[in-house]
């Protein structure tokens, strides 16, 4: 597979960034794709104050720059191919994230809601399964690199 970054849609609809994002802005980007869109399913992951029985003060996300983006682009492309949907946006933040803050966003626009929901649940499951992103939880007892079993 080529290491070159494809230009265009990928950069608009797939991003790994330090800054927070606006859900409304991402929805508008997705719905701008087609007037056929009637159902938009969205997943927003936020930082909880508890994890496996531990209190959590904040979380730091680390990602493999390049491979993380490539993986998310592949998830977007497979979602567009395998589901009857019109567009999907995938964003993940990195760096330090406080409790209650946004971490990850999936926005799927489709003609009909059933496919939007199906693609959205698939995309977040797949993101957790294969994307090289890691999480350090800061707890009152110290810092823990988290191993997830989704």
């Amino acid at each position, binding site marked *: 597979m080529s290491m070159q970054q494809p230009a265009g849609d990928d950069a608009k609809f797939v991003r790994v960034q330090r800054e927070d994002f606006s859900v409304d802005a991402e929805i508008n980007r997705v719905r701008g794709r087609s007037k056929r869109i009637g159902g938009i399913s969205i997943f927003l992951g936020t930082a909880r104050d508890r994890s496996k029985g531990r209190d959590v003060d904040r979380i730091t996300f680390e990602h493999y720059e390049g491979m993380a983006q490539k993986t998310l682009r592949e998830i977007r492309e497979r979602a567009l191919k395998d589901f009857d949907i019109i567009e999907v946006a995938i964003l*993940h933040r990195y760096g330090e994230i406080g409790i209650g803050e946004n971490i990850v966003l999936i926005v799927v626009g489709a003609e009909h809601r059933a496919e939007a929901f199906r693609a959205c649940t698939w995309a977040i499951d797949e993101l957790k399964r294969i994307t090289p992103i890691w999480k350090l939880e800061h707890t009152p007892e110290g810092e823990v690199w988290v191993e997830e079993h989704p």
Partner: protein
Amino acid sequence: MITVRLFGMTKMLAGNQGTLSLNLVNGRRVKDLVGVLETGYPAIGELIQKKKVLVSVNQEIAHEDTTIQDGDEVALLPPFAGGASAGC
């Protein structure tokens, strides 16, 4: 010399080094790299043997027989944990 990128818990297990420079003297395959790691960083070697840590070559998950060429981008990938809080 092969440069290996480290992340998350593998970086921590290597004393917070973000990269390791390793000499592959007995072969150019991923399993040869793992052999070298087992000597210098046994905790990381064990995680690779248990398949908790994956090896990637050029941003693709590699297998023990994958060949490593000069200039390849090699990385050790601990269990992924993207996508919000544990079990969200």
